[in-house]
């Protein structure tokens, strides 16, 4: 329970969920506070952990016992809300879905890349949501309003099942090298959202969305590096979904 770099805190009274553990791990966190320094700095924290602890527990330990100024987002803490995506040992993961014991003796933690950092691990998600909104991620129906729910066969539902799983954590978009360099690129998450409606038999807005993704900054900028598929905490085949949109565009044309 020591804090390196210029943060010298006396070891606090052992409390918190992991206080009884015998093993420790070093969290190397990229801190950024514009009110303190214009540059981000790395700070290391030594934290005890149990084999059952997730990285989020370790971050809680830091915040609650070592350094209350550490900021990060989290809500449900069970991999459903998608708030705590971060770059862990260089890969985008949800802090609540990885175990500390699987991450080695020193864990590097950074904010997700490509979005403006506001403080520590908190980034401005607005550019991400802008791209999401741009693909019209809602049902566009035509014809008369039905008097009951819009029915669909199991096979039709299956067609876009994979892309319904998205929790909008931005792990995929911020793992994409094209997005890092080009903020105008829609990014994989927006394409997953578009895919979910393009291939929905109840939806009539496919053409509209395909046109949007046919833009200069749309699907054609995808380099199929598969970073997005690797990053997705829900196991969505993101790259595959993007290629299916490409294919739909081509077969619509020829």
């Amino acid at each position, binding site marked *: 329970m020591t804090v390196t770099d210029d943060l010298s805190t006396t070891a606090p009274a052992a409390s918190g969920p992991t206080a009884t553990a015998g093993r420790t791990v070093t969290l190397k966190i*990229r801190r950024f506070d514009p009110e303190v320094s*214009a*540059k*981000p700095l*790395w700070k290391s924290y030594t934290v005890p952990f149990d084999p059952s602890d997730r990285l989020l527990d370790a971050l809680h330990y830091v915040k609650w016992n070592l350094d209350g100024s550490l900021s990060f987002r989290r809500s449900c803490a069970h991999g459903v809300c998608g708030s705590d995506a971060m*770059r862990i040992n*260089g890969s985008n993961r949800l802090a609540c879905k990885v175990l500390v014991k699987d991450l080695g003796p020193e864990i*590097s933690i*950074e904010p997700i*890349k*490509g*979005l*403006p*950092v506001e403080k520590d691990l908190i980034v401005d998600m607005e*550019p991400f949501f*802008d*791209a999401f909104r*741009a693909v019209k991620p809602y049902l566009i129906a035509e014809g008369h309003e039905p008097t009951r729910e819009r029915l669909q066969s199991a096979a039709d539902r299956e067609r876009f099942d994979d892309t319904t799983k998205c929790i909008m954590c931005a792990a995929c978009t911020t793992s994409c*090298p*094209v997005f*890092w*360099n*080009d*903020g*105008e690129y829609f990014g994989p998450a927006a394409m997953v959202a578009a895919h979910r409606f393009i291939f929905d038999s109840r939806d009539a807005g496919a053409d509209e969305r395909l*046109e949007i993704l*046919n*833009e*200069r900054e*749309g699907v*054609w*900028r995808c*380099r199929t590096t598969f970073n997005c598929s690797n990053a997705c905490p829900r196991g969505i085949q993101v790259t595959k979904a993007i290629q299916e949109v*490409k294919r739909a*565009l*081509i077969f619509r*044309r020829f």
Partner: protein
Amino acid sequence: MATTINGAAAPAIETPRSPRRRPGGPKARTNFELYAWLFMRISGVLLLFLVLGHLFIMNILDGGVQRIGFGFVAGRWASPFWRTWDLLMLVLAELHGTNGLRTVINDYAERAQTRFWLKMLLYVSAGLVITLGSLVIFTFDPNIS
């Protein structure tokens, strides 16, 4: 706005870049990127045969590279088939490479100015190579002295 990072392990790309901008009114939508993508696939497959065939004929088939001379070229280019082959190879390879580099520039050049001038350089050089190459193929004179 962009802050620089020092001493950190991972190279970081800082607080971005141009954000999504959607200025008033949608941009004119074209299928350029779709055709460019498709062209890369088709030209790639064609070049596989054209280039490997070319390499085989030039370097391996009877005597290989030793037999190539003015006479050999003149003999081949007497036939429109080989002229078409070479012209196709020239144009497809140059455009394939140009489009590939255009993509690389789009991916890596961050400033709009840099992008623009790199691409201009690329297009001019591609134009020169295609012009010069086609000039030779079309105006080749076997009786030149």
